[in-house]
């Protein structure tokens, strides 16, 4: 089991943020067989967190331990962790097999066994028989799969994935999500992934850890985070409206709001604009105090911008948030 305690990592010495903490005291646990996703906006220190756990980035404070053993003095190549890089980082001067088998060679696996395992892994990621292809001849999605096979080959006790579906197009992502889930499930090893895309996070992870500026905002089961965001930041990041128009500080999904005639507890608003979303319209409304809220409208009657309306809350869909300190 991976245990991260009070981890602080400062940015490298380049860039404008030099010296500022990228990871500002993070606690994290990933059990065997568990898939944990660190979710946060770009620049919230996610990649740095992975690099620090890998041992590629020195920690300014805190510990990274595996099964109770502090890894401070274990160099990256002895941690038996795997890391799939955001942009693959395939070795351009080796072919597909040379990439996938690299970790096996480092372990001293005999050539025959390595060849067999490479073939198995390539079949697993859906690229059977591609051993001899140069990696530069692969498409983005194929490179992603080779990178995954390469990271899986040495059977790491912890597999880390940095934005695993980052650069792929929508159809491919949806396909790969299912495959990844299947592979994670079959391996029964710890998996830690980071992403800025909440659909990806909830599709893949058992547990979601939302981070903001290098700190944990919420750490809970995927369903819990989705249904009960703990802070206004998490709620907004997941697409909730965060508002006080109904009294207490509430997080409410656009689906939890309806537009209708005046009723008890309804709030008068004006329609600002509307955009089409796959299966509904997203209508943006403004209250008399100027607050702007999103409402999901599935009716055939979509109100025109400028129309006055009344905003009705479905209490079951609202989450009461703690008032910010």
């Amino acid at each position, binding site marked *: 089991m991976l245990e991260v305690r009070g981890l602080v990592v400062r940015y*490298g010495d*380049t*860039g404008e943020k030099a010296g500022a903490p990228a990871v500002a005291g993070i606690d994290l646990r990933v059990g065997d067989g568990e898939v944990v996703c660190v979710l946060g906006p770009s620049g919230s220190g996610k990649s740095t967190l992975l690099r620090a756990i890998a041992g590629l980035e020195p920690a300014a404070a805190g510990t990274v331990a595996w099964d109770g053993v502090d890894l401070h003095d274990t160099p*990256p*190549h002895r941690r038996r962790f795997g890391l799939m*890089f955001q*942009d693959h980082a*395939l*070795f*351009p001067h080796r072919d597909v097999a040379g990439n996938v088998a690299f970790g096996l060679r480092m372990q001293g696996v005999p050539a025959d066994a390595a060849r067999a395992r490479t073939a198995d892994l390539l079949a697993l990621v859906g690229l059977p028989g591609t051993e001899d292809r140069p990696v530069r001849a692969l498409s983005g999605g194929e490179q992603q799969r080779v990178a995954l096979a390469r990271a899986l080959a040495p059977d790491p006790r912890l597999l880390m994935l940095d934005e695993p579906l980052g650069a792929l197009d929508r159809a491919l992502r949806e396909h790969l999500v299912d495959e990844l889930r299947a592979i994670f499930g079959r391996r029964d090893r710890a998996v830690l992934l980071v992403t800025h895309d909440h659909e990806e996070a909830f599709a893949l992870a058992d547990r979601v850890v939302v981070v903001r500026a290098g700190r944990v905002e919420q750490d809970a089961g995927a369903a819990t985070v989705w249904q009960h965001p703990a802070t206004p930041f998490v709620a907004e990041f997941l697409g909730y409206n965060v508002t006080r128009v109904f009294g207490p500080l509430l997080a409410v999904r656009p689906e939890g709001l309806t537009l209708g005639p005046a009723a008890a507890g309804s709030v008068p608003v004006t329609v600002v604009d509307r955009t089409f979303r796959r299966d509904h319209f997203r209508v943006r409304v403004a209250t008399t105090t100027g607050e702007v809220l999103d409402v999901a409208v599935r009716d055939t009657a979509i109100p025109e911008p400028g129309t006055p309306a009344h905003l009705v809350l479905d209490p079951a869909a609202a989450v009461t948030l703690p008032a910010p300190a």
Partner: protein
Amino acid sequence: MTRPPRARAATYGTRGSRVAAGIAIAIPCAFIAVFFAYPVASILGRGLAPNGALDLDPLRRVFTDPTQRGVVWFTVWQAALSTLLTLVLALPGAYVLARLRFPGRSLVRALVTIPFVMPTVLVASAFLALGVPRSLGAILLAHVFFNYAVVVRVVGELWRHLDPQEEDAARMLGASRLRVFREITLPALRPGIVAAATITFLFCFTSFGVILFLGGPTRSTIETEIYRQTTRFLDLPLAAALSIVQLAAVIALLWLVGRFQRGASVPRRLRAAREVEHRPRSIADRVLLVTNLTVMATLLALPLGELVVRSLTPPSGPGFGYYRALGTVRAGSTLFVAPLDAVGNSLRFAVVATVIAVTVGGLAAWAGVRTRSRWLEGALALPLGISAVTLGFGFLIALDEPPLDLRGSQWLVPLAQALVAMPFVVLLTAPVLRAIDPRMRDAATMLGASPARVRRAVDLPIAARALFVAAAFAFAISLGEFGATTFVARPDTPTIPIVVYRLLGQPGDVSFGAAMAASCILMLLVALAVLAGDRVRAGRLGEF
């Protein structure tokens, strides 16, 4: 993975612009034909058919005569040893300057490249000033001195942009630091290392001044042997045969390396340098930093510093005594004029050579890019592979009789220098011209600019900077040119390098000191030229 778009020839060119392009191609072609191909053909004629009929005897002598065989063998192994030594010393330096951040790094980077443009004569003086005896060791040291920058530049430029994630990925797959270097870093650097080693080997293989000054009377390479056979024994067929052997060796090596590089080079994603570099955090990095800065200071800075000190400390007491001695013709001197006159000669020749080199080289680069053909560029880079001595020798035997009798003409020196400098002009300008985004031209056209206007508004400002840098470089090279100049300069109009050579050949403290002083003047002039070029370059062109 995606290649940069190739410069497209203007599809909207008019007939006028095609005529202009034709002229632009014709001028460098004619220049190369008359001043390069013709002399080389003359050498071939002299070496292969000294009496009009095919006669392989001179060539046979190169390989059967024990002295000549020794010369060829020495040429090869000293070049190989020099290359190896340069790589061993400069590769860690390349890492330090490419990957580590430390205060004053850009200054060190700039300083390290200075030796490369220093004239051989000057460097030889510097090592002599340091008290290094004429020996094999002196030759090797001087070769490392010259080529350190080649490795640091060529390999360092690659190293600066290698994706460090590849190394991280290998680490995560269980490779130790050493293993990562061997399995990932080294293969990635290989094209750069091979290129740097090839350039270094060629420079050392065709080394002339260094051997002549620092080798002592017994050590001779093919280059110095050509000179010796020509000037001392007047055995022109043998000299020509030596030239042919050298030419063949150079061409064969370039061909081999070209083949190897085509197979070995893998297109890879490059990173911005600032994502790659880091502060020296580990102990290994700190040790590397300190040792390499020490090596650079001792090897590169110390000789030049000592040269200045020696030139300013005559026995009569610190001051400009040696410099004053440059103003007079001493009795018994092999110089017919006051050494100081050479400064004027050098400047005059260098200006003319620069104008020729930039005009011809610039036109060739433009034509080469415009016609999208590399052969013109390749043809113009040829003199680079063929040594200055061969060029000088070729001038000597080709241009001293009808149809082209330039014997004794003041034009010979600048023409020879221009030929030596021109490949650099092409190499410096063509990539810049090629890198002009064709969409910039398209955009200007769509905004209503005529083809001529496009050239003026888009190409010219960019080309002008590159041409200025090239001019500064050509000027520096012409100032220090020794190998070709020594064949064609008239005794009454010597250049500074020739004066230094003569002075070093004369006995006595005053001559030696005067040589140091003349070298310092040369160093100052070259440094000024390089600095002028660098100021422009620092603005936009290139990172290193």
